[in-house]
């Protein structure tokens, strides 16, 4: 379990992190979201024991990060922001060093090394200096380092930054595969990633937690949740269609986007209006190229939450 109790970090007058508390249980994948400078990295550094908190405390598997640092660190795999390593080493030397520091011996060391090298597809670059590797490979070397000792707790600061879409997909698969029995905390800017891998999302803004929910619940906060968007073949008749939709029961209001020739109907409350809208479209014989139910937009929720806080 990870436990953070009123973690606070002040740099002079700047309150980088301001009393953050949460616990994470095994099986949970927690996504840390927030604008740049909101305190994500500082929070993760306090959890990993790199930055001492000004106040509050952090625990990893029952061990205090500050008072029993070695015990806590043994149970933690940590990918620092930017995946730093030693550029003059090769991934083979680097991972071997990490294995030795982590006290992996003999057969266990060999099998763990083989496992992470295979999982992160590092076989081809094992003997190249890390400083000559692409950003994507460097990130994967950093991830390999973090999971090498098969820790119960993983803290990954922007694990997919700098990866191409295929690599991102692979890393997400990796996280999903490990998620079952581990505690995983990741920070990310990529909202789709939260939907893809996280079972829980915490949004931080100006050093405070402003939302702590499942990604699905966050999406439900979106004003687009359950809205229906119709895309028309022709621009003519958009306004008439919008008026018809507005007259429909349970429709709160309608927005027209001339550029994409689409009309979006927003329901009152959480009412389901899809069938009625579809019936109406059939009745009127509208020439539609698309008709779909919006699940909600995470970026919109993110913006509305964090901008409200920052204002």
């Amino acid at each position, binding site marked *: 379990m990870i436990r953070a109790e009123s973690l606070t970090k002040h740099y002079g007058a700047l309150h980088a992190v301001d009393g953050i508390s949460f616990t994470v249980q095994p099986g949970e994948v927690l996504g840390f979201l927030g604008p740049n400078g909101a305190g994500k990295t500082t929070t993760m*550094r306090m959890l*990993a*024991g*790199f*930055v*001492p908190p000004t106040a509050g405390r952090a625990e990893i598997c029952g061990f205090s990060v500050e008072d029993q*640092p*070695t015990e806590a*660190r*043994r149970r*933690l795999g*940590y990918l*620092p*922001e*930017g995946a*730093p*390593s*030693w*550029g*003059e*080493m090769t991934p083979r*030397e680097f991972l071997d*060093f*990490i294995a*030795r*520091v*982590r*006290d992996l011996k003999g057969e266990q060391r060999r099998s763990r090394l083989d496992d992470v090298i295979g999982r992160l597809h590092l076989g081809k670059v094992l003997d190249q*200096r890390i400083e000559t590797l692409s950003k994507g490979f460097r990130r994967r070397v950093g991830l390999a*380092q973090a999971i090498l000792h098969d820790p119960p707790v993983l803290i990954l600061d922007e694990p997919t930054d700098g990866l191409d879409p295929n690599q991102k997909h692979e890393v997400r698969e990796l996280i999903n595969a490990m998620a079952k029995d581990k505690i995983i905390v990741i920070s990310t800017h990529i909202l789709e990633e939260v939907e893809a891998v996280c079972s829980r999302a915490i949004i931080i803004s100006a050093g405070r937690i402003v939302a702590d929910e499942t990604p699905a619940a966050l999406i439900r906060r979106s004003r687009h949740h359950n809205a229906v968007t119709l895309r028309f073949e022709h621009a003519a008749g958009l306004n008439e269609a919008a008026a018809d939709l507005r007259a429909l029961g349970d429709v709160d209001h309608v927005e027209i986007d001339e550029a994409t020739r689409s009309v979006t109907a927003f329901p009152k409350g959480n009412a389901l209006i899809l069938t009625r809208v579809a019936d109406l479209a059939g009745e009127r014989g509208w020439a539609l190229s698309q008709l779909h139910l919006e699940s909600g937009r995470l970026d919109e929720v993110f913006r509305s939450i964090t901008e409200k806080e920052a204002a």
Partner: protein
Amino acid sequence: MSGIRVIAGRELRAYFATPLAFVFIVIFLALMGVFTFYLGGFYERAQADLSPFFNFHPWLYLFLVPAIAMRLWAEERKSGSIELLMTLPVTTTAAVIGKFLAAWAFTALALALTFPIWITVNYLGDPDNGVILAAYLGSLLMAGGFLAIGSCISAANRNQVVAFIITVVICFLFLLAGFPVVLDFFGGWAPQALIDTVSGLSFLTHFNAISKGVIDLRDVFYFGMVIAAWLYATTIVLEMKKAD
């Protein structure tokens, strides 16, 4: 502790993974030769001892050892690898000692590679090899003292050049603590006890004592204390500002 050994091993390999080791050793040996044979008048003295060789060690170390020490922590800080190192399950003390030992072993290697001059003096005459061995030991201890000072200054700075310059200045003060250039600063206002303490801190005095062939435990203890104190200061500096 296994942590110290693993970290020292990684460090030491890192020296040889870059041109640093090669450049340092070549320059170290070349300067040693220049100083000994030209400035020291090794042949002209026509004496079978190595004092013209060892006399220049403190001055050579004054510039070369801080060049090794400046990267110890400043580089880790700059590249961000300090965050990785400090979140691995090793204590700060183990990391400090491991990195120091690697740097010390490296200077020991450079020093050991001056062996041809020892062969030369044995070929030409009949020197007291006990004195030479003692002087090598003293030289190594002094290098350790300089490295420990450099380690602490490097931990406090992100910029290697700044770390280098500050280290040179502090090493210079320690080197000459027993001489007027430093003592005059204290003269007139400081109590005699302080002046005596400061003059007792001189690297040069302790080194000269050992290099005469008299291994007084007090001199060895002195260098041991200097190394321990500066390494301890390094851990405190790191704990305080590792993330800054």
